[in-house]
């Protein structure tokens, strides 16, 4: 019997129209050396959702490109996976709203999952699982975030980095035993000890919004936020990444029986230039094989890997047959990696 494989057929992305430029940041933070920050992060433009734009809206716009470009039709989709940490509502499931908006069949399965920067890789693993147990043939994986809605306007520690955006990835089944598995092995990792280091503390059931949670405080770097805002301990996140990701990459190579030189291109979560450079040096990956491309986009959380992949495909950096390692890591802490063959 032929084995069913799954492969990434197409990726389309969407960024909100409104942009936050470096000169606007310089005006907002006259005391901060924005140029220095920008030089380190490698980010010069961020996309910001409007007040009426939610993660479903961004996700729908990305997915509509797959439909209008005739890459697939709504009736082809038999499962929708939606990854977000900024859902439209507590309930219902945002994926259900998207099913209706995209006019996917009512026979389509749909679910949300809550992950950040590792979300795309987890989504690929779920899609591969659904396809390879023959439960679905065309899985639409949408990653979308509107982190800007969590960010305090006076908190440059996160405002300079994060960007809103969405990616729609179509994963389809193929029956061809002559090919290399297009979506290969996975490794996963979780360490909830890091939960406090990247968090929106209030607004859920543990700490509902109240007068107290709206109270603002200023940190030692002059950033203002309340418990309803996004908080990131950059130093601890950086340490987690350096401690975890190089060994995760090596674990995946071992599991895949590959050497680091067998990988044609590495696309890590596009967190910021500084962190990626540190990881690249640690792993001794040559610059030409390592993607650093978020200057005009910012850190789009779960969409950063598919966005970088779409660009690399369009630019011809990766092409049919390229073996690409994808590595996601961040909030949770949560991490995951896989190797795809284009």
């Amino acid at each position, binding site marked *: 019997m032929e084995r069913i494989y799954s492969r990434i057929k197409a990726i389309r992305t969407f960024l909100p129209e409104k942009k936050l430029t470096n000169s606007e940041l310089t005006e907002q933070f006259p005391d901060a050396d924005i140029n220095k920050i920008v030089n380190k992060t490698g980010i010069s433009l961020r996309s910001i959702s409007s007040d009426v734009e939610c993660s479903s809206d961004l996700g729908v716009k990305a997915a509509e490109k797959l439909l209008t470009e005739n890459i697939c039709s709504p009736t082809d989709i038999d499962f929708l996976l939606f990854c977000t940490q900024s859902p439209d509502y507590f309930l219902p499931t945002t994926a259900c709203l998207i099913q209706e908006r995209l006019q996917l069949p009512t026979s389509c399965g749909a679910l949300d999952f809550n992950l950040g920067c590792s979300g795309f890789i987890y989504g690929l693993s779920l899609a591969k699982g659904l396809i390879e147990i023959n439960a679905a043939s065309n899985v639409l994986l949408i990653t979308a975030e509107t982190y800007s809605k969590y960010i305090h306007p006076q908190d440059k520690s996160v405002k300079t980095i994060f960007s809103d955006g969405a990616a729609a990835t179509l994963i389809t089944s193929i029956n061809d035993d002559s090919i290399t598995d297009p979506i290969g092995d996975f490794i996963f990792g979780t360490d909830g000890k890091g939960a406090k280091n990247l968090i929106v503390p209030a607004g859920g059931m543990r700490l509902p919004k109240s007068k107290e949670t709206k109270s603002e405080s200023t940190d030692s770097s002059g950033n203002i936020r309340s418990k309803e805002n996004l908080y990131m301990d950059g*130093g*601890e996140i*950086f340490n987690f990444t*350096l*401690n975890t990701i190089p060994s995760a990459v090596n674990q995946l190579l071992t599991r895949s029986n590959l050497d680091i030189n067998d990988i044609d291109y590495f696309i890590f979560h596009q967190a910021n230039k500084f962190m990626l*450079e*540190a990881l690249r040096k*640690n792993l001794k990956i040559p610059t030409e094989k390592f993607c650093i491309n978020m200057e005009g986009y910012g850190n789009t959380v779960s969409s950063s890997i598919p966005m970088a992949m779409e660009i690399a495909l369009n630019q011809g950096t990766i092409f049919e047959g390229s073996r690409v390692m994808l590595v996601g890591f961040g909030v949770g802490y949560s991490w995951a990696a896989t190797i795809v063959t284009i």
Partner: protein
Amino acid sequence: MDKKAFLADMAEILEVTNAELSDALELNNDNWHSFAVVATIAAINEHFGITVPADTLIKCSNIGELINLIEANIK
């Protein structure tokens, strides 16, 4: 342990010359901000292959303490 290369990186991070970088050089609010701390974490990882907790690093008040902290973590 590539202390010389690490100290050259520290001079760049703290925006001083190599000659100005001594054990007594003070780390304070003016030069020991979050970016400097993160950059130091990266430099320590690059030159010594270890990571040092950010909350411990930020408490160092001069370069001598920073070096002692790294040496303690290497052992």
